[in-house]
């Protein structure tokens, strides 16, 4: 963080980034819904070089029973990185970072999921990172939201997510791994596109007020792009083999 000097040119004079993208261009995103048979709902996302599987169970009985809530359902979320998801083997035990991301993603999904319809139950969301490449929490959140919809769990809106950041004093959309390591700021944003509400904002780095505003607007614009891809994933699974009603 903080703009360390490296040999890597993050942004050249033509406004092209280190991986050949323009400043407001996201990486390639592909989402597929319903990829796992045994889970109630599932999704697979490829977000640049991120590859993440999401599985959803529930609403179902809570175990251990004492954490059940008689007024509403509860949401549990586990974000986990496979040992082979990064270049150096990662210990499969949950790290400080994974525990934090699990909590943050749970809180980003909670406003969307209508758990009050299912008292005394739990909805479990499992996110398995198969390959990580910067911005995996955003990609995980996108997959989780599609998996929840695939499981038929009522939601106020989908949650779409993408990061924006600052590299070479310029605000960019969708921060990749190199930009995250050497850039000046990284801001993941979760957004409900129809309700126009934000469910997640984190910021690592320093931005001025104006930069912050621009960064948030850029990210929200990106979330709307992601939303279209999520929508397509669900439409493909549920409505592909029939004519429009």
């Amino acid at each position, binding site marked *: 963080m903080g703009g360390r000097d490296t040999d890597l040119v993050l942004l050249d004079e033509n406004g092209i980034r280190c991986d050949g993208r323009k400043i407001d261009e996201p990486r390639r995103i592909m989402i597929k819904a319903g990829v796992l048979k045994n889970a*109630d*709902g599932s999704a697979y996302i490829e977000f640049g070089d991120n590859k993440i599987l999401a599985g959803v169970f*529930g*609403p*179902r*009985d809570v175990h251990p029973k004492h954490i059940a809530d*008689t007024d509403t359902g509860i949401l549990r979320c586990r974000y986990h990185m496979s040992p082979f998801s990064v270049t150096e083997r990662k210990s499969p035990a949950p790290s400080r970072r994974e525990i934090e991301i699990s909590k943050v993603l749970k809180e980003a999904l909670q406003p*969307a999921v*209508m758990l009050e*319809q*299912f*008292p*005394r*139950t739990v909805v479990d969301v499992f996110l398995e990172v198969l390959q990580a490449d910067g911005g995996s929490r955003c990609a995980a959140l996108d997959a989780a939201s599609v998996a929840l*919809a*695939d*499981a*038929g*769990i*009522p*939601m*106020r*809106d*989908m949650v779409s997510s993408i990061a924006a950041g600052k590299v070479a004093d310029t605000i960019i959309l969708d921060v990749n791994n190199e930009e995250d390591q050497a850039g000046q700021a990284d801001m993941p944003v979760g957004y*409900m*596109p*129809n*309700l126009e509400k934000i469910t997640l904002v984190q910021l690592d780095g320093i931005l001025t007020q104006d930069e912050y505003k621009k960064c948030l607007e850029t990210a929200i614009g990106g979330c709307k792009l992601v939303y279209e891809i999520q*929508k397509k994933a*669900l*439409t493909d699974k*549920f*409505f592909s*083999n*029939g*004519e*429009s*009603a």
Partner: protein
Amino acid sequence: MDNAKRKYVIPGDVITTAPFRPEQNVILDGKKIIATVVGTSEIYDDSVRVIPLAGKYSPKVNDLIIGKVVSHSSLSWELDINSCYVGFLPAQDVFGRDFSAHADELTSKLKKGDLVVARIANSDRSRDPLLTVSDRELGKIESGELVKISPSKVPRLIGKRGTMIQTIEMATNAIITIGQNGWIVVSCENRNGLLKAIKAIRMVDKQAHIANLTDRVKLMLESSGE
């Protein structure tokens, strides 16, 4: 059916901004009526609802359901009813008023794994749904094949005034018991008929959103021949 405006929706989709009455699986946000599940939206007269394409069964009083015994205590059985809650079947319902926890052994009537046709007697937010088998045609299922489909597709399997299910039963000579929770028991003397009926049910489950499904099923049942 005909005056209903239909549309495919996913959670968050705005169905309409007109002043209609929000019903199942929609929420009202200001003036917008928003879908909360993946499914087909319907606008009838002045009400809006979404028929879900996925999700678990939500128990409603008086629904006929099929459950599987998962465990029992000394006073009741617990049944898996394909919902997020277990169905609760009191022993008195099976043994009668003079049931005694000392004298009667619950496993003598229903064992783990048995299938039961039951009706939902009571269901509210604070307790697990209460089942009853004290009626004609309710109780333990002795024979048949269990087929599981999505609960939201049960109305499609029954069809308009039962046309779909009649078509399947007539063509295969099978007896089909449909639980509102998406569990179905098919029994048939003839092996071929049984397989055909199961195939037809699976077909309805997969192609529920396609128009003219009854004709397609009829065609399938006739084509595979004797």
